[in-house]
């Protein structure tokens, strides 16, 4: 797969106080590709995703989307962020708005669509995640899986070029994980470009083009699922995968 490169990440560094959380991360993302990030807790996976859309400003390094610099983009960042969808571990749905309004609000306020148009578009996205019948419920009335699907619809409504997923299923009960992963699989199959932090190795194996193993703020190794899982180069990677296996069942298990 040698498509067009739509996202370039170069040498991202980030420290909080004296702790270096990211120590020079670089990679390219091709159109339609899914990259999965794994690594133990505290290695900076969330920080990395947030650096990509500048919710966290990196100390050093650059991010380009379609050849346009995202870092140091000043006011332009608000336009660029629309092109970078983000899905959070704990959903972060707007609790005062119904599911449909959650999807609409940025269309109306940011894209300046009129209400009718925005409403239709929101409904379309809710259909895409299979929640058209929950449109008028408030977040507190949704199950975790449904809430996460709404938050995916909310990000999709902005027609993003890339989607960032930060452990989208780790706050969910096991039986709800499947429905969210299914939505993500469909997205990947329909050509969405995605960066996913997850420890669902079943998903990673069947969907990812590349798995990136992060350790202490660096990319230790990366490769296609079969390469990385069957032949990890480093002991550290092997250890981590074994631990995941213990925690989540056999690696490679399909959901």
């Amino acid at each position: 797969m040698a498509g067009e490169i739509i996202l370039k990440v170069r040498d991202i560094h980030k420290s909080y106080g004296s702790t270096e959380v990211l120590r020079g991360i670089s990679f390219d993302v091709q159109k339609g590709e899914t990259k999965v990030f794994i690594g133990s807790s505290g290695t900076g996976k969330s920080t990395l995703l947030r650096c990509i859309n500048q919710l966290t400003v990196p100390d050093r390094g650059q991010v380009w989307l379609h050849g346009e610099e995202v870092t140091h983009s000043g006011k332009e960042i608000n336009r660029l962020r629309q092109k970078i969808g983000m899905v959070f571990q704990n959903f972060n749905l707007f609790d005062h708005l119904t599911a449909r309004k959650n999807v609409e609000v940025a269309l109306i306020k940011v894209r300046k669509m009129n209400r009718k148009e925005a409403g239709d578009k929101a409904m379309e996205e809710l259909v895409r995640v299979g929640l058209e019948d929950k449109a008028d419920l408030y977040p507190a009335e949704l199950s975790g899986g449904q809430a996460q699907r709404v938050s995916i619809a909310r990000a999709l409504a902005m027609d993003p070029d890339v989607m960032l997923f930060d452990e989208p299923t780790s706050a969910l009960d096991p039986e709800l994980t499947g429905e969210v992963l299914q939505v993500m699989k469909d997205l990947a199959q329909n050509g969405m470009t995605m960066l996913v932090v997850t420890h669902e190795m079943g998903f990673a194996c069947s969907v990812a083009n590349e798995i990136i193993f992060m350790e202490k703020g660096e990319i230790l190794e990366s490769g296609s699922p079969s390469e990385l899982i069957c032949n990890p180069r480093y002991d550290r990677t092997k250890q981590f995968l074994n631990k995941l296996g213990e925690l989540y069942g056999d690696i490679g298990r399909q959901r």
Partner: protein
Amino acid sequence: MNDTITLIFKALPFILQGTFVTLKIVAGALLVGFICGLALAVGQVYGRPFLSGSVAFYVWFFRGLPNLVLLFLFYYGLFPLMGLDVSAFFIAVTALGLRSSAYQSQLFRGCIQSLGEGQMMAARSLGMTRPQAVWNIILPQALRISLPGWSNEYPILLTDSAVTYAIGVMEILTRGNLVVSRTYQPMPIYMTCALIFIIMNYGGMKMLHLLERRLQIPGFGRGEH
């Protein structure tokens, strides 16, 4: 006994006119306190250190002063000093309003902070600017959560409004005192005034609770705040 009742009924229209003044003070101060309090809270949470520090000082100052001292300071001191010739009513609303803003700002601040960072991040990730996120996402939620606490401001301001007697605002207590000075019948008149306050207090609270229930969102802001 009959004399007393006649006296009360004769004085009542005059005193009742004071309820409008009292209500206007309360409403005005609530409004001033709401607008300034909201702005202060946003400044304290999202402002640069200098701004949040200034807000903290403002809050400390206005919460630490007695109403009476504040009223005297404004009425005899600051406003004449600035060459402003304004009515006692205006000063009452300003002083009580600013004081209320100090209290309200802390209520709003707590509610904004209780929302957590996630809401702001989600809004920004969709391309909203910071002011857009504050206006469309943070404030609507913070205001709903703050409603129960906010309705506490009403009885506080209502009872505090009586202090404006000290600068001669023609509210209930001032009018009551005028009647007393003419009739030398303090007990029945004061009791009547007190009763008016109690009814306004109790009735107002009942109405606010009703409003709270109407504005509730399913599953939102569960539990007491």
